[in-house]
């Protein structure tokens, strides 16, 4: 049997849900099908660290319920993987062999963990964190872990390490780059975050490479991670969080242009006119340099999903994608780090203003060019990231309030907000 949908959405996470929301605002009747390989109702990968820590109960993290899909007249097909997109026939093939036809297709398949080619890794048991099942498994394993090693000091690895430390394990993090959370924070901020981890009993091996993984003594669970300096880190729990890659396999042979992710224009349209992509799977224009890039963060998945939904439904109110801005918020050991925008590397004329108060664990960095905001970064510093994002996108001239902005960015930005777009 072949089904047909006016709108077919692959994926059920932030990008997919945002697209469904906006397309339904414009077209309340068109037939919508959402297919996801998640076996459950929709949830966010971002909540998973809190499932691991026990703060969130797995049955309370769902972003929508059945009643929502009924009310929106959406066929929600869960636990079903899309294997192939046949763009020439406007159908997708499911793992069970069924096909679904579509008029417009959204690929919101997100990303999945990269498994690095470290010799020995294939022979040992390790954990990744992308799905609810991963989280439940890691939580169970963490309960009994005494020694844990985390490969990768990105957000996922750092969250995992903190959770394992709280669970009582002796934790080590191995990161190839010179500092933690590369891309979002500079060396000063990363050092501050690193200190909190060290104080929490986590050992950091930054600028270090895991050369190989040796299996544990026979009969023993666990393994040993061999570092480039020669040390060996024995552990009974190994977490791999070295990065993610867009899920594009289903597009092979479809004619949809894929670089690292699905290449999309400013309305999230791929190289095939009725196929769209949004979220972690999409490679869209960067705000600062105009180069198409991956921006694997939740707020951008929402932004891109909203645009894709409007484009698919033909909503004339659509505004083109303003370009991706790196953004993040990060809570660690009760402290709060926020990063909005670029540090300005390679941007001529960028001016940087940094205040570090190590004793109060407070850090604030503002990057301007021509009195326009390029980026703002804080640890335990008060400002509204959403307002700053908007100031960046609108290229608001800060010259008239420059001193106040550098001195008290939250108040100055709120005044500008209230005057400009309230």
């Amino acid at each position: 049997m072949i089904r047909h949908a006016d709108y077919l959405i692959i994926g059920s996470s932030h990008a997919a849900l945002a697209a469904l929301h906006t397309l339904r605002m414009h077209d309340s009747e068109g037939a919508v099908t959402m297919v996801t390989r998640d076996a459950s109702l929709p949830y966010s990968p971002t909540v998973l660290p809190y499932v691991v820590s026990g703060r969130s109960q797995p049955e309370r993290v769902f972003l929508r319920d059945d009643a929502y899909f009924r009310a929106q007249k959406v066929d929600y097909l869960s636990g079903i993987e899309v294997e192939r997109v046949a763009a020439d026939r406007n159908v997708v093939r499911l793992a069970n062999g069924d096909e679904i036809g579509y008029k417009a297709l959204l690929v919101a398949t997100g990303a999945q963990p990269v498994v690095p080619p470290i010799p020995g890794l294939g022979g040992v048991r390790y954990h990744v964190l992308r799905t609810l099942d991963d989280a439940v498994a890691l939580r169970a394993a963490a309960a009994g872990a005494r020694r844990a090693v985390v490969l990768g000091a990105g957000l996922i690895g750092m969250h995992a390490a903190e959770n394992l430390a709280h669970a009582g394990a002796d934790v080590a993090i191995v990161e190839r780059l010179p500092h933690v959370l590369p891309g979002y924070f500079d060396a000063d901020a990363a050092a501050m975050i690193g200190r909190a981890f060290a104080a929490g009993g986590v050992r950091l091996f930054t600028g270090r490479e895991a050369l190989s993984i040796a299996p544990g003594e026979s009969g023993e669970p666990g393994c040993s991670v061999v570092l480039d300096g020669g040390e060996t880190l024995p552990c009974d729990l190994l977490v791999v969080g070295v990065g993610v890659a867009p899920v594009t396999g289903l597009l092979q042979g479809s004619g949809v242009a894929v670089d690292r992710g699905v290449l999309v224009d400013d309305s999230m349209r791929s190289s095939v006119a009725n196929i769209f992509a949004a979220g972690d799977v999409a490679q869209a224009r960067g705000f600062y340099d105009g180069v198409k890039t991956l921006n694997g963060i939740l707020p951008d998945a929402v932004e891109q999903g909203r645009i894709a939904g409007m484009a698919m439904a033909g909503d004339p109110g659509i505004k083109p994608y303003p370009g991706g801005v790196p953004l993040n918020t990060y809570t660690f050991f009760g402290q709060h780090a926020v990063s909005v925008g670029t540090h300005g590397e390679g941007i001529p004329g960028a001016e940087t203003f940094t205040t570090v108060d190590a004793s109060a664990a407070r850090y604030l960095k503002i990057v301007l060019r021509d009195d326009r905001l390029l980026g703002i970064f804080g640890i335990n510093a008060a400002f509204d990231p959403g307002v700053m994002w908007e100031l960046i996108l609108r290229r608001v001239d800060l010259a008239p309030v420059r001193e106040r902005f550098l001195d008290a960015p939250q108040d100055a930005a709120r005044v500008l907000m209230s005057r400009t777009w309230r």
Partner: protein
Amino acid sequence: MTGAYSTIAFDAARCDGCNACMVSCAQAKAGSDEVADSRIQIVAGDGAFELAMCRQCGDPRCEANCPAAALVKNEDSGVVDWDGSKCVDCLLCTVGCAYGGIVRNARAGHVVKCDLCDGDPACVKACAPGALRYVTTARIYNEVGQLEDLFVPGLSGCQGCNTELIMRHALRRIGPDTVLATPPGCIPGMGSVGYNGLTGTKVPVFHPLLTNTASMLAGIKRRYNRLGREVNAVALAGDGGASDVGFQSLSGAAERGEQILFICVDNEGYMNTGMQRSSCTPYGAWTSTTPVGEHGRGKTQDAKNLPVLMMMHNCAYVATASTAFMEDLYAKLDRAIAASKRGFAYLHIYSPCTTGWRFPSQDNITVARMAVETNFVLLWEFDPEAGLQLTHPVDAPRPVRDYLEAQGKYRHLSPEQVAHIEAGIDRQAAFIARLAQAGGAPPARPSFA
């Protein structure tokens, strides 16, 4: 789908930066006196005060950004509710909010946001200068939206005309047990009496002459009274039909205390027949019969103050209203309906005419609001016991020039004419204020020497 919601409105011009709102919010929500704990934040800009607080967005981005389903727009209250048992303190909501409306609070240890204090906001109560208002107008639209629309779809008013709004809302509220009279004017002109043998309403409607509206309605109402059936006898008339040739029958019905609700939609002229002057057309206004040219400078006489004349009949209820103040209009409509069961009720609604007054069609409500804000028209109500009371006193009226300049029909005014209008506004305000002070019913033989 959901309806409209109540909301907190901020008028920066009235804010004096006293911080009372922030202190009262901090006390109510955090048990502290620190303004930092307030969920409403007033920030000093240069010379003015600005606001950061949750807008309870219709399509909230904080909710879309929440990975833990901790933020949900409440369809009943309109508030974006925060569920502390689900929040994971990730702060992604603060990335989504472009208004500084959801912010991490150190004392609480999590994000906090305005929840409108369950419909009784502490900040609004604390705001002495009136910069913060809790606007509950939405309630009316939701309530009236539930009531049956008693006009057919597709009335053909001019673009931007608000008379359709008045007609549909009024009849929804008055209800189906109604006989409606629509004398010649815009209201039947846009299709309410109907076409091809079908009426444009779902209630009995008739099209009297301009001259006999009130007397015909009086007869119908008396007949129904005799039959023992309770029916609302309602007129939806224009100012021409009410103040000029229709005035004799109107005055007679009012004097006899007929149980009628007479609604006059005052657009200051005979607009549907080509914009001729009526006795309600203001001084100086251009109409097709008070032209502007080599000699003509618009109307040379002042407008008749019809609602005051009706009040002098000592009716059961008389009020003036404006579509820019719907809560006020609705309260008066309710009282007028109730009064029409006892005696004569008269409601005079000022209704700008996009076509005849010559302003852009999207500005109707703006012009209506300016008429009130400049004291060009006054909103008041009267009943024999309480006398006349202003329902929306304007202490510091805007310059009337703002109002005049918004309309093409005053474009030709000379400074002398503007001065005449200004003097008239002051006289009217003083006169109504004296009536308000006097209170009670007008004397049987009034003298205001």
